[in-house]
């Protein structure tokens, strides 16, 4: 009986963890390129969820096409934001970029609020009600899909970064932007691409979470905060750090909520962050 509960919590944690990993991945990619902690990333998650919601409910598309379309739309939005908001502060001190991201975060959330109100909407999905039982763990198919699709997207991203020429260019810019530029790499185009990919990942995460946790304008705050915790703990700019950190955080939170307290469950991540930074102020794998 004990083991069953434990496994169930771990399973739930892996599902949530895959969301954290996807958002954190986008965040860490942007940080690796621009050295800006892009707060507003959480809103691309939220807008991706809303885009999927409207495509499904207004145009009647099926959930997969809606999700892909939303990913595309958010990729475009991400590139636009990079051009208009982040590129001008790219060479300024990092605190400027941080503040700009904060402003964008608040602006986008409140624009969504004005347009769509604060009500929580459930994204209709054919997978939300059917359940799967495996080794005493029961999950809705939707949750299983969240996990599976995340793993797939993360794997695709890994292929992109490690096996393509674009990926090599991205890694070069992340390592040393000046030298990369000297080698002829068009860093602005790389920035654009990274923003596009990150935003698409965030949109996918939002779209998949919609049927489970509802869609509403402030849904981006907690995931982006958790994503920051993940990348600080996993190392800002580190892709494996974001992926593993995301899953570890998800599982830890789920176990904490199950065994300790579920009201304060959100506080665990932040408490963990504070404790780690007290001991190692540059993060678990940081280099500063």
């Amino acid at each position, binding site marked *: 009986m004990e083991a069953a509960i434990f496994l169930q919590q771990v399973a739930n944690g892996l599902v949530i963890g895959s969301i954290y990993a996807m958002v954190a991945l986008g965040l860490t990619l942007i940080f690796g390129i621009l050295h800006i902690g892009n707060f507003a990333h959480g809103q691309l998650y939220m807008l991706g969820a809303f885009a999927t919601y409207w495509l499904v409910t207004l145009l009647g598309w099926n959930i997969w096409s809606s999700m892909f379309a939303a990913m595309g739309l958010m990729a475009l939005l991400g590139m636009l934001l990079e051009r208009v908001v982040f590129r001008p*502060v790219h060479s300024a001190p990092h605190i400027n970029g941080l*503040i700009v991201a904060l402003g964008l975060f*608040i602006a986008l959330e409140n*624009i969504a609020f004005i347009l769509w109100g604060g009500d929580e909407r459930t994204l209709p999905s054919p997978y939300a009600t059917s359940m799967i039982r495996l080794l005493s763990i029961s999950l809705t198919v939707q949750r299983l899909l969240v996990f599976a699709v995340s793993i797939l997207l993360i794997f695709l991203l890994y292929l992109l970064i490690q096996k393509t020429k674009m990926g090599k260019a991205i890694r070069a810019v992340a390592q040393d932007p000046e030298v990369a530029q000297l080698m002829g790499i068009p860093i602005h185009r790389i920035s654009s691409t990274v923003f596009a990919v990150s935003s698409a990942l965030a949109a996918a995460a939002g779209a998949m979470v919609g049927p489970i946790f509802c869609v509403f304008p402030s849904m981006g*705050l907690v995931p982006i905060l958790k994503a*920051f915790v993940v990348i600080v703990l996993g190392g800002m700019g580190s892709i494996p750090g974001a992926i593993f950190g995301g899953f570890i955080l998800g599982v830890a939170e789920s176990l904490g909520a199950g065994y300790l307290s579920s009201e304060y469950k959100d506080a665990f991540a932040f408490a963990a962050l504070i404790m780690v*930074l007290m001991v190692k102020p540059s993060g678990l794998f940081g280099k500063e």
Partner: protein
Amino acid sequence: MKGESLKTSRVFWAILILLVLLPFLLPKAYLHLAVIIGIHAILALSLGLVVGFVGQLSLCHAGFYGIGAYTSALLTFAHWPFWLALPAAGVISGIFGLLIGLPSLKTRGTYFAITTLSFGVIMSIALNNWISLTNGPDGLSGLALPGPIPLWGRTSISFNSPRNYYFLVGLFLFFTIFVFRRLLNSRVGRAFSGVRDNEVLAECLGIRALRYKLTAFIIGAIFAGLAGSLYAHYLRYICPRDFSFAESFDLLVMVVVGGAQTILGPIVGALFILALPKFFGFEPVYGRVAFGIILIIVMIYMPRGIVGTLQRGFRSSRGGTVGHP
């Protein structure tokens, strides 16, 4: 601010006289706004000390505001007089400033922002969930007014009208400005600037950076706590939402738009951010969108803020940042 004798300039006296006459000229609704602006000016100044002079982005400042407010409220429920609860609120906030600042200030940049943000979120969660202490999201109501100050004869100054509270807040604002000016023009203030501009060099010169950063952070927390107490006993009702991240964000906008490295800046910022929506009759939602966009535009085109850019001249307006000249 650096060396200018603002205190003796005619502009200063003109503004001072205008401010003193204001409550007798304004209708009551505007007077209420003036009190709120005054309280936020103190708050913005306290955040400006951290952002402008330590050069770091603190995102938990509304938490200190909230701790001051709740401390003051709970003490007055325990029959403390307001005039004791007020300084106590400052002290308690200062203690939290120490507890939070000590771990946070070992980090820098984005890490510092996220750490303070985490602390801010934890404080919000605590305020909302520790029902036995704070009554949770419903808040605390029926807070006491400050007790009347007895004058000669049988008259006394009572605080059940915005006008007298306006003067109380105004007095505290001037007190804050006075303390900050003295601080920033002293050796301590020069150490702040040194640490902000080049921490490594400052350390080489024997300035213990952490100690000075912590001092600024604690002072910022103390004044935020005082502002919290003033707020609590003016509105006589407080709830956790008043002290959330949204409030921290608003304060940051005030500091950045006004100009973080000046004393006038945060005050101008508070005036600008609070008065503008009221004059145009905006809902807070529209206001927040505007603030976000304004923040972006200011950081791209005028990172030193309104007052900072005016002081430096427009030619170099695009340079600099909130934390560096």
